[in-house]
């Protein structure tokens, strides 16, 4: 991994984030809906409204508002949430770890499951396992994540109540964790009963999020594996006498992964976007769920903070994908 590459990418992050902040700031003030109207009690006077407007600086021109907001952001202050009356940074940091854990779990599931399906479908190509893999991926490309969420709640929450359908943890559990990364922390501390309830809460939303991505990975990887298996170096490996699984995994998989990794960068972003609906459906306390609340309340500072957070998540994910792409493909490594 070349350091200048990383540095170059990190420098590019700054204009990207500024661009995102401008677009969000302007859009939020152009679309209908007034945060003050959501705050005032019934029967407030015009004076009260004007007073609030002044208090939050919403009476000033957009450019001035933006510059005020931006200069505070540079100091690390994203303002105060209008609806929750709390510091935006604190609010987001308290919810972000939940979303990160959920998204990472979903990515993990989709990569493992997608890769296994592709390998199975390639190993037994033109036989019944491939038919099953194709059927499964076709179905999952057609069904969106939120529909899976509803199906799971109906199946495993209502008809056959195996798993909890809402929240992140059983409210009866007395939690004494210091960080918000519950799963990681409970594992490190060896509190397996806590870990188990966390997993039980997470398994349905994580699988619902993971399934569409699983299908994309399985389909794309299987197509490139099939292509790779016709290459001369695969035939050489057969002549040399390596076993069929070894050839598939050691010789073919790494070559076939390269286009799939490039593709899954875009797909991971869809997954991050998917957390918004899935967290809402499962009442999961992450920033996706918080975003919907913030939009309904027209909570401008909170929405701005959340969108910047999502933008940073997107950028970090893509950076990781690009770096793994370069590790996999020696030809672009030393550019």
């Amino acid at each position, binding site marked *: 991994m070349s350091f200048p590459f990383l540095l170059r990418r990190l420098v590019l992050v700054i204009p990207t984030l500024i661009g995102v902040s401008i677009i969000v700031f302007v859009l939020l003030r152009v679309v209908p809906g007034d945060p003050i109207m959501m705050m005032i009690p019934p029967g407030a006077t015009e004076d009260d409204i004007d007073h609030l407007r002044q208090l939050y600086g919403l009476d000033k021109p957009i450019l001035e508002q933006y510059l005020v907001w931006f200069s505070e952001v540079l100091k690390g202050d994203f303002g105060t949430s209008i609806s929750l009356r709390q510091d935006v940074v604190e609010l987001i940091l308290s919810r972000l770890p939940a979303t990160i854990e959920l998204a990472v779990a979903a990515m993990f599931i989709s990569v493992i499951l997608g890769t296994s399906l592709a390998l199975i479908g390639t190993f037994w190509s033109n036989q019944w396992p491939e038919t099953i893999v194709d059927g499964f991926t076709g179905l999952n490309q057609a069904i969106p994540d939120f529909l899976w969420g509803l199906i799971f709640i109906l199946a495993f929450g209502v008809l056959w109540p195996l798993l909890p359908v809402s929240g992140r943890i059983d409210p009866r559990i007395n939690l004494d964790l210091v960080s918000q990364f519950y799963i990681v922390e409970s594992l490190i501390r060896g509190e397996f009963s806590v870990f188990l309830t966390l997993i039980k809460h997470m398994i349905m939303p994580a699988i619902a999020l993971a399934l569409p991505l699983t299908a994309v990975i399985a389909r794309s990887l299987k197509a490139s594996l099939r292509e790779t298996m016709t*290459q001369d*170096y695969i035939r*050489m490996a*057969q*002549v040399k006498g*390596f076993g069929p699984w070894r050839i598939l995994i050691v010789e073919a998989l790494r070559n076939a992964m390269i286009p799939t990794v490039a593709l899954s960068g875009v797909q991971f972003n869809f997954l991050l976007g998917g957390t918004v609906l899935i967290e809402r459906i499962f009442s999961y306390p992450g920033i996706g769920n918080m975003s919907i609340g913030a939009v309904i309340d027209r909570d401008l500072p909170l929405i701005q903070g959340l969108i910047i957070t999502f933008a940073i998540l997107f950028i970090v994910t893509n950076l990781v994908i690009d770096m793994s792409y370069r590790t996999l493909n020696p030809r672009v490594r030393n550019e």
Partner: protein
Amino acid sequence: MNAVLDVQNLYLGVSQKRHYSPILNGVNLEIQRSQIHGLVGESGAGKSMLAKAILGILPSSTTIDKGYIHFKGNDLVGMPRYERRQLASRHIAMIPQDPMTSLNPVRRVGNQLGDVLRLHMKLNRTLAQERVLELLNDVQIRDPKRVVHQYPFELSGGMRQRVLIAMAFSCKPELIIADEPTTALDVTVQRQILQLIKQLQSETGTSVLFISHDLGVIAKICDHVSILHTGNVVEMQSAVNLFQNPRHEYTQNLLEITSHYYRFENTD
């Protein structure tokens, strides 16, 4: 009988959408120990298919209908895949036609060579690494210590073919099938590669089945030559006799065309 490989009465064909086309019609081929046996034929004569049948890498649409491929007292035809791999993969090696695509692009050259040694020679990682350096040295690669850490795309075509030759000879096989090993290389490199194969063959005593459409190349390195024409071996002779005294009409035509071609090339 001192034959390493004995192909008898081999019939082979391709089925595509219920249409069957025969490729080999009763081929006989006997390769003697420590000899370079040339296999000559024009494009489509079935040279590569014969090689693939011996190596056990026929495409799934191709079937062997009749005949035997005897190797070490066993018939390779109809042998289950796993048993065949156990029996033949160490002792029958291949030098491929296109060195540019025959090495895995994302794996280091040293590891690709080392894996073969660890599989067949049961060497541990350290011993395999040492042996790889010796092998690369044997194929006259300069600075083997650097090359083992390189990826195939960092090597020239000639270098890659040397690596593949090292790989073919690495487990001391009894037979190497060289399927047009110089066609993808430019002329100066061709000669070096031919010399290298010839030299390693005489040092190790391995038999080589050398496939080519180029009689000039065949004349340089082969002991015996078989002429393959429309799915049949029409003539088998020692190389010296073949060029002086071709028996079959097709061979005579082939030699005549070749000599015209060389005369034409020389006046150029």
